[in-house]
């Protein structure tokens, strides 16, 4: 029994009014799907069914795209940019006003700790709308020509790891640039996007400007292959990204992809060790490791590996896993049984291939899907856990001897989304960052996001940038 045992401090879920069923948000209204199909969305921490959600088929997708086209031609594409900005500012403000409601719903549907949904997901989502609202009437100065035009209708498919935030990343720049959207949230986490639809009604966004079609892979395929889209934006796995690229090859539809990653977090021997430990923890255990830019490979200089790992293990022992709605929870639930199975399988491959598994003492709840924070030492570049994206709270530890070796190992991956560098020496940070083939390089921090900063990958991590001035390019005829 710990000396200082924190009593449960759960955030109340009463603030969220869950409906038993949700329709598709098309042309400004919630509507039933043509063939009446539904699926259940589940709380991953309890396996309790939260709601029945409509499953969109090809006919529904067609209706949504048609509504978006009408809205683009009739209203949104012709609206004065300053007026568009007002809608986006209003969305941002309402997101802030209803922040607690969004945070609780996100934690219920996704399994992430309320501390993260409250302090990261929801504030950042609002910040993205604020940021791009500011761009709407300043597009001439974005660096894409004197009179950049919107593309038209964008189809946007987003993942389950940051449901609301990814919706904001997709919708805010598209709308600011004058496009209309059909958004497909992930099938395990549709609820915050549907609550966002209520916000869009609340701010009187013209019907059809944003349409939300819920469903699984089939719905996503129907949307991507629709033919009536000017633009497709996808965030998710590299495998699905490649399928989408094949589908759209030879068509006029523009594409941006934000895919997987296997980021290296490089710790040099002159790093601020205690803060590096925090950065490693934040890099791989933030959101249960369900982060495409997670620092899943720790590359540590051999001369400092031992003290660093000792500190890291001490730190992992203080992580609190459990009820996502408890304000003191650090590690929540794995989003789905399928994801848990994948994490478990890959971790087992680490054991089988000869890496050494370490986990702190960490009792898991009886119901729901959980995986304890895990680190593997003795990992070599050839191990599956060093090459494949695990998308879970599993850290692979590798060592290096020289800065050159660190860079070679860090770049020796098909991915290239993000990387971290830890050193107290500025010149070493710059030398390393120049050589890393990764879209984002963090220095003495990790997993820091800001709407003004572009984000995106090299190689199999995708192409195109989201965030910042650069994020507008994907939605303009630049």
């Amino acid at each position, binding site marked *: 029994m710990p000396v200082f045992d924190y*009593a449960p401090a759960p955030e109340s879920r009463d603030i969220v009014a869950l409906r038993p069923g949700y329709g598709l948000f098309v042309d400004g209204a919630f509507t039933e799907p043509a063939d009446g199909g539904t699926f259940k969305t589940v709380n991953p921490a309890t396996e309790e069914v939260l709601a029945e959600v409509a499953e969109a088929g090809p006919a529904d997708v067609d209706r949504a795209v048609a509504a978006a086209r009408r809205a683009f031609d009739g209203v949104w594409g012709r609206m004065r940019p300053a007026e568009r900005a007002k809608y986006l500012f209003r969305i941002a403000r309402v997101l802030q006003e209803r922040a607690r409601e969004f945070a609780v719903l996100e934690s219920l549907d996704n399994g992430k700790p309320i501390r993260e949904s409250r302090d990261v997901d929801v504030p950042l989502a609002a910040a993205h709308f604020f940021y791009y609202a500011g761009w709407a009437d300043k597009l001439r100065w974005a660096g894409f020509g004197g009179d950049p035009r919107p593309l038209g209708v964008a189809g946007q498919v987003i993942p389950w790891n940051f449901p609301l935030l990814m919706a904001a990343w997709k919708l805010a720049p598209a709308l600011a640039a004058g496009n209309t959207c059909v958004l497909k949230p992930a099938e395990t986490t549709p609820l915050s996007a549907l609550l966002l639809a209520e916000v869009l009604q609340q701010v009187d966004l013209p019907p059809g400007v944003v349409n939300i079609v819920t469903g699984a892979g089939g719905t996503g395929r129907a949307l991507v292959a629709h033919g009536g889209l000017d633009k497709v934006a996808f965030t998710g796995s590299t495998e699905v990204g490649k399928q989408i690229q094949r589908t759209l090859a030879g068509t006029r539809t523009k594409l941006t992809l934000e895919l997987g990653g296997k980021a290296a977090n490089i710790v040099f021997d*002159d790093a601020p*060790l205690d803060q590096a430990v925090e950065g490693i923890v934040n890099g791989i255990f933030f959101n249960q490791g369900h982060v495409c830019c997670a620092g899943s490979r720790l590359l540590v200089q051999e001369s400092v590996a031992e003290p660093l790992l000792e500190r890291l293990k001490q730190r992992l022992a203080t992580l609190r896993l459990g009820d996502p709605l408890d304000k003191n929870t650090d590690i929540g639930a794995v989003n789905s049984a399928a994801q848990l199975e994948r994490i478990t399988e890959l971790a087992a491959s680490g054991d089988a291939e000869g890496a050494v598994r370490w986990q702190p003492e960490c009792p898991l709840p009886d119901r729901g899907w959980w995986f304890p924070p895990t680190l593997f030492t003795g990992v070599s570049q050839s191990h599956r856990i060093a090459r494949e994206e695990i998308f879970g709270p599993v850290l692979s530890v590798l060592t290096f001897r020289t800065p050159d070796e660190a860079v070679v190992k860090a770049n020796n991956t098909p991915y290239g989304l993000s990387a971290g560098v830890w050193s107290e020496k500025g010149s070493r940070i710059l030398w390393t960052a120049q050589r890393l083939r990764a879209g984002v390089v963090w220095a003495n921090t990790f997993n820091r996001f800001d709407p003004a900063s572009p984000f995106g990958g090299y190689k199999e991590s995708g192409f195109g940038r989201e965030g910042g001035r650069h994020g507008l390019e994907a939605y303009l005829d630049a």
Partner: protein
Amino acid sequence: MSLLVPAAEHLPDALASESTLRRFLHGLPGVDQVGAEARAATLATRSIKRESKRWALDMAVRMTDLTTLEGADTPGKVRALSAKAVRPDPSDPTCPSVAAVCVYGDLAGEAAAVVAGSGVHVAAVATAFPSGRASLAVKLADTRDAVAAGADEIDMVIDRGAFLCGRYGEVLEEIVQVKQACGPAHLKVILETGELATLDNARRAAWLAMAGGADFVKTSTGKVTPAATLPVTLVLLEAVRDFAALTGRAVGVKAAGGIRSAKDAIRYLVMVNEVAGERWLTPEAFRFGASTLLNDLLLQRAKQRTGAYAGPDYFTID
């Protein structure tokens, strides 16, 4: 440098000469200020409720060094404060005593007379507190005087001038000598981190103090702004944790100045718990140096007990 340094057996290379001492202190892992502040801010979001809050409030009372360090202090004021230290809440017999009364050395005898037999310690500031600008002979005499007057804890200040111009050996020697002058009294070494300015300096000064035999490292005199902050306390807690891993000796930490609310105090306890560990969750290893904090702790204790807030007039002002 041939000092009888208490930590010499564990740090023989570091303490061999002035230059090895400098190399050791500058070879300690750096502190990234942005990262340290972010860690402190995240820990401050912990939500401590119900029985854990009651436990924390009692522990914070037991960890308090109830302090008066004014030029206007009188024997009467110190006696009143000492009575309060023994029985902080006369309406509640379950309320624990505080850890110590902290006063200027010339009034230590007044405090000792009141708290005798209660278990409450008498802490006296010494070594030309708060500036520390006096000769070593004066500082040692100041220390011996306070111990003779009845202080069993001495809060000394380091020579920040010497530290900032890199004369680390001089700072260390002074700590070692004051420690000897303390005799059986416990030594708290005030780093005055507000004047050291960087977190790197705070970490180096903490290691110097621990090497010199400090029983506690203490953030501040309370006379300089900023005094105790969560990030600087984080760095001191990391230092004592690392020193204990190296030597086995658990040096305490005292956060002093600027901690006024029970809510703040609980944030410090969370940090002690998660950064240094349970071993530091006792009045022997963690203290608050404060004057107004105690009444807020008492107010919150009473709220937990009765379910309602009492007015400030129900708690004594001494």
